[in-house]
């Protein structure tokens, strides 16, 4: 039935369409052809009339009408031209194809009779009853109308052709109509069967049977393509159905296994679907008991909290992580996070609610604990006396404690979130350290740093790398060590004094020996000079040389003591440890117990380190004193004595060494080993020996500061110490100091300076007569004249009297009546350009520095020699 109707319709449509198309084509073609033909004929006629008009214009002007007939004859003979008429401006026919018309009046074109009228050429085109195309054109020269030409054209050929075309078209149309009926019937028959089968197949696919056989017609390309498309569609739908099932299964699985409680509720809040987690959170028995329950009544503890939630979800359409407390099944209250979306209908009405609920009780508890710990840590950080600042990788401040606020004057509120270099310029100089710590992930410490313009405080600055949750940063800690430093210096001084005290006994003994040598030789010289034999010049020279030797020894002893006792600022400079060892040995020779044998093994090359000379010597001396004590006073019973060995050698750091000494960060070190054969110590004692005030010596024999000081000094020089000791056998202290690489390490021997002579008057002011006389003599020997004064006041008076002649003043610093400083000031009042060389037995300390700043030209350390005195005086005069 369906096939039949389809077939009938198909045939009917085909035939009707064919007929309509044929008729339309014929009508269209006829119209187009006629229009085109008439237009072509009109153009042809126009050409003839215009040519005629142009040709006859001159003849009309000159009233020479005879040639007009010739033109009429010529143009009348042309194809489709039935007749031509030429008239003058008064419409009088001057020439015509039909001779009988000559002399008659040309019929004027009535208004509106023209099919078309071209204004430019004033042409009139029309068709008369005999189907003649009549074209009338004026003969114009300039604006003057001389006459008119009228051409009669035959349309017979056009109409005949048109009739023939219409007849042919009708016949063809009829043929096509019959053909269409035939083809339509055939096609309908051939198409209806596969279409029916296609419909059966689609019915099966609709019912989910994707394995149905789909027809494969091969004789119609479109049906073949349709068959292929249907098969592809069936296959695609089958695949999609399978994917949908898999997806449904997957999401159902997720739904069922989700830790969050997932729900779907209708517009009234009645639960439509829930997952097991939801049932668990709400303490339900089963899914069936939950479905139909009101979601909001189940999870909100009271109407007020529900109203707040409802207001939010009604205005925003969703609620995200909405925290609420619910009591599930009368059990312990739990904290839950609710996320809910409203699903709307097309008209905007609420369709349903979807969302999930999560038990965040543990999370909230953890958050509270974290907050508590954070608060606790913050309190610690804030209470720290040290400034603590943390930065992120972009140098933005993330922590700024109270100490930082105090130090910089910038509050944490102002600092946090800002670039540290923008808010605290004092950090600009540490940008490199911040970067290094950021990149190398190693901590870094700077010692004794001054911050900003404040010179009264010292800080140890430590840069720690921070890595937290994958975010890198740096923690900077400023420890104010000013007080500690002061204390340390005090302790150091005390320890020095202790060392000096230790040394004093031996020193006094040796000093007596020196004095004895000097006094003995003097007495011998005096005796021999008084004796009849007299004293030969040779012997005199020998005696004087012995006295000088003894005096030089005394000078060395005093200098060492002064060096040790001098409380100086730490001056880091290249120090040859070999030389320091030599100095310590000199001190030790005179002070250590004679039962101890000291053996040295200096390095084969200058052992330079970057340190303070005094501190290095203090380290060596302390270690040596401890070693000596271990071999003498710390022995429970005699005999005292042993061997003190001091060696210096270079250590190149290798992995084995570094493993044993993790402090070793450099590539090479000088190792100074101080070994004794003393009492030794056990491991427990060895572990405490660097603690301040720890001592194993008897009461009054040790302060417990020596090794602590050693340790401190070595650490400050970026070095470290290790100890090896065996009880009853002795100990070895190894001090490691970084090797200082110097350009041109080899030191050439400095030649002894020559004695520099001079001339002029020199004023020598010194309260010590021996020194004053010696200076006078020495200056005179090298060519100067000398005035002497016994104190400052006397010196000032002499200077006032002889200021014009005095070239320079040698001025002692510590004098009675008037000190060197006061005397200099007075002399400056007399002559602001006075040239003074200051001499003192003290080292060049702050007092000396102060006088130098007042305008004293130079400083000469006592005791001086003729060489050093002459050189210094010469320099002052020439300055």
């Amino acid at each position, binding site marked *: 039935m369906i096939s039949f109707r389809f077939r009938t319709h198909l045939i009917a449509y085909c035939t009707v369409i064919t007929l309509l198309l044929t008729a339309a084509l014929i009508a269209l073609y006829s119209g187009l052809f006629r229009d085109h033909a008439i237009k072509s004929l009109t153009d042809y006629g126009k050409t003839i009339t215009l040519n005629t008009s142009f040709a006859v214009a001159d003849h009309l002007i000159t*009233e020479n009408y005879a040639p007009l007939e010739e033109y009429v004859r010529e143009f009348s003979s042309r194809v489709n031209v039935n007749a031509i008429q030429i008239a003058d401006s008064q419409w009088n026919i001057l020439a015509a194809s039909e001779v009988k018309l000559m002399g008659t009046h040309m019929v004027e074109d009535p208004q509106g009779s023209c099919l078309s009228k071209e204004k430019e050429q004033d042409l009139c085109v029309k068709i008369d009853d005999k189907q003649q195309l009549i074209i009338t054109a004026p003969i114009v020269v300039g*604006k003057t109308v*001389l006459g008119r030409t009228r051409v009669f054209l035959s349309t017979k050929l056009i109409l005949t052709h048109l009739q023939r075309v219409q007849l042919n078209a009708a016949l063809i149309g009829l043929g096509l109509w019959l053909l269409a009926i035939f083809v339509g019937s055939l096609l309908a028959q051939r198409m209806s069967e596969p279409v029916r089968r296609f419909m059966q197949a689609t019915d099966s696919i609709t019912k989910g049977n994707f394995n149905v056989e789909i027809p494969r017609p091969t004789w119609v390309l479109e049906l073949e393509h349709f068959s292929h498309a249907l098969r592809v569609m069936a296959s695609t739908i089958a695949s999609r159905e399978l994917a949908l099932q898999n997806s449904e299964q997957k999401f159902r699985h997720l739904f069922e296994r989700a830790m969050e409680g997932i729900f779907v509720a209708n517009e009234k809040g009645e639960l439509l679907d829930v997952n097991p987690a939801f049932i668990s959170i709400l303490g339900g028995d089963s899914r069936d008991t939950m479905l139909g329950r009101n979601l909001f009544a189940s999870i909100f503890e009271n109407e007020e909290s529900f109203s707040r939630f409802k207001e939010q979800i009604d205005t925003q359409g969703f609620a995200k992580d909405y925290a609420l407390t619910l009591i599930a099944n009368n059990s312990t209250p739990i904290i839950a996070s609710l996320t809910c979306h409203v699903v709307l209908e097309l008209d905007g009405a609420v369709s349903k609610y979807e969302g999930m609920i999560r038990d965040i009780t543990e999370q909230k508890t953890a958050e509270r604990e974290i907050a508590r710990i954070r608060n606790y840590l913050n309190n610690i950080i804030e209470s720290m006396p040290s400034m603590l600042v943390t930065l992120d990788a972009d140098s933005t401040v993330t922590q700024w404690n109270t100490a930082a606020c105090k130090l910089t004057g910038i509050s944490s509120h102002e600092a946090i979130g800002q670039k540290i270099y923008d808010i605290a310029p004092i950090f600009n100089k540490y940008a490199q350290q911040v970067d290094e710590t950021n990149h190398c992930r190693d901590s870094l410490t700077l010692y004794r740093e001054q911050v900003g313009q404040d010179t009264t405080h010292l800080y140890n600055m430590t840069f720690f790398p921070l890595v937290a949750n994958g975010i890198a940063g740096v923690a900077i800690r400023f420890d104010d060590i000013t007080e500690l430093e002061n204390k340390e210096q005090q302790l150091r001084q005390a320890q020095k004094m202790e060392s000096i005290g230790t040394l004093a006994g031996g020193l006094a003994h040796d000093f007596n020996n020196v004095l004895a040598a000097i006094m003995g030789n003097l007495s011998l010289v005096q005796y021999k000079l008084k004796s009849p034999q007299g004293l030969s010049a040779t012997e005199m020279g020998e005696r004087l040389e012995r006295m000088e030797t003894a005096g030089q020894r005394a000078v060395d002893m005093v200098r060492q003591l002064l060096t040790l006792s001098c409380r100086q600022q730490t001056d880091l400079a290249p120090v040859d440890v070999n030389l320091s060892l030599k100095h310590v040995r000199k001190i030790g020779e005179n002070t250590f117990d004679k039962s101890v044998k000291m053996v040295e093994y200096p390095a084969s090359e200058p052992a330079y380190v970057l340190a303070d000379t005094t501190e290095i010597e203090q380290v060596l001396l302390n270690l040596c004193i401890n070693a000596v004590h271990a071999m003498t006073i710390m022995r429970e019973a005699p005999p005292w004595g042993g061997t003190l060995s001091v060696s210096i050698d270079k250590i190149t750091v290798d992995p084995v060494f570094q493993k044993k000494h993790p402090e070793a960060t450099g590539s090479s070190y000088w190792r100074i080993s101080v070994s004794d054969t003393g009492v030794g110590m056990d491991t427990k004692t060895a572990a405490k020996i660097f603690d301040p005030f720890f001592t194993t010596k008897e009461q009054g024999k040790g302060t417990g500061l020596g090794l602590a000081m050693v340790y401190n000094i070595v650490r400050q020089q970026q070095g470290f110490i290790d100890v090896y000791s065996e009880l009853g056998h002795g100990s070895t202290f190894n001090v490691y100091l970084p090797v200082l690489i110097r350009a041109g390490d080899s030191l050439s021997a400095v030649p002894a300076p020559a004695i520099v002579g001079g001339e002029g008057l020199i004023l020598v002011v010194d309260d010590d007569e021996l020194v004053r006389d010696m200076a006078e003599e020495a200056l005179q020997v090298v060519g100067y004249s000398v005035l002497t004064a016994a104190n400052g006041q006397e010196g000032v008076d002499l200077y006032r009297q002889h200021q014009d002649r005095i070239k320079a003043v040698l001025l002692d610093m510590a004098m009675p009546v008037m000190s060197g400083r006061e005397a200099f000031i007075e002399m400056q009042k007399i002559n602001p350009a006075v040239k003074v060389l200051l001499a003192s037995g003290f080292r060049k300390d702050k007092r000396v520095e102060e006088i130098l700043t007042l305008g004293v030209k130079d400083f000469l350390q006592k005791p001086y020699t003729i060489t050093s005195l002459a050189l210094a005086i010469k320099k002052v005069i020439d300055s």
Partner: protein
Amino acid sequence: MFGILIRPTAMFVFLLLTLWGVVIPNPSPAHEAPNIIKFAVFPYKSPKSVIEVFGPIVARLEKKLGKKVQLVSAPDAASFLAKGLAGEYDLAFPSTTVYYKMLPAGYTVIAKGVPSFWGGAIVRKDSGITTIEQCKGKKIAAIGEHSFAGYMFFKDLLAKKKIDFAKDLDIQFLGKVDTVIYGVLNKKYDAGLLRLDILETPDFVALKDQFRVIARSPEIPQFPFVVKNGMDQRTVAAFREVLTSLSPGKPEDLEILKSLQINKIVGATKGDYDQFYKIIKDSEFFRQH
């Protein structure tokens, strides 16, 4: 013989005229102008050029008179003269010589163009020809036989020098002045005959210095505007007013005056053409034509 024949004819004409005078009321000498006024222009230009030049004047006349004015010309001078003599023209612009010949038909001069002009014989300056005698045996370019300035005056001059035009010269009628000028310039002709004021026009003034004038005609008046005798005075006055109102100060009038090679049109009478008539009346050309 002739007297016998003439006498009956004269009698017949007399009777006819008498009858005409008795039977048909004698129209007043100053008769009304016809509904269509025929204005004939001597064919000195192509017919279309005549329409283009005189069309604006005709339009003004029509506007002035309120009548149709038919502008006509003629294929040639002879036809023009024939129709003029037949009295077909109400208003005419004949050449000067044709005017003289049209006089018997009864035409009156009402206006003329000024200034007058001269004809001349020109040669190239480098030709070595300085006198008309040297033109003997040379090729001469002329305008036409009817042209006094472009032919006749030179023929008369040569005749006075006893030079036979037909034998001693090779005369070519070229019709147009530019053909004459360029013919001489391009050495196709040894001498050229033309209106000398042509050389003052913008088209040729640049070439003027390359020519030498070896002969000059008497002063030639411009073509006259004539009306048929008996035209009513209102119409004549209207003609004269329209013609003399052309002013070189108006661009559209200037075009007309330039095409006529005149500065303006002034009122004129027969007397203005008597002097020139005396000069040419005995010439061979005038006799022949």
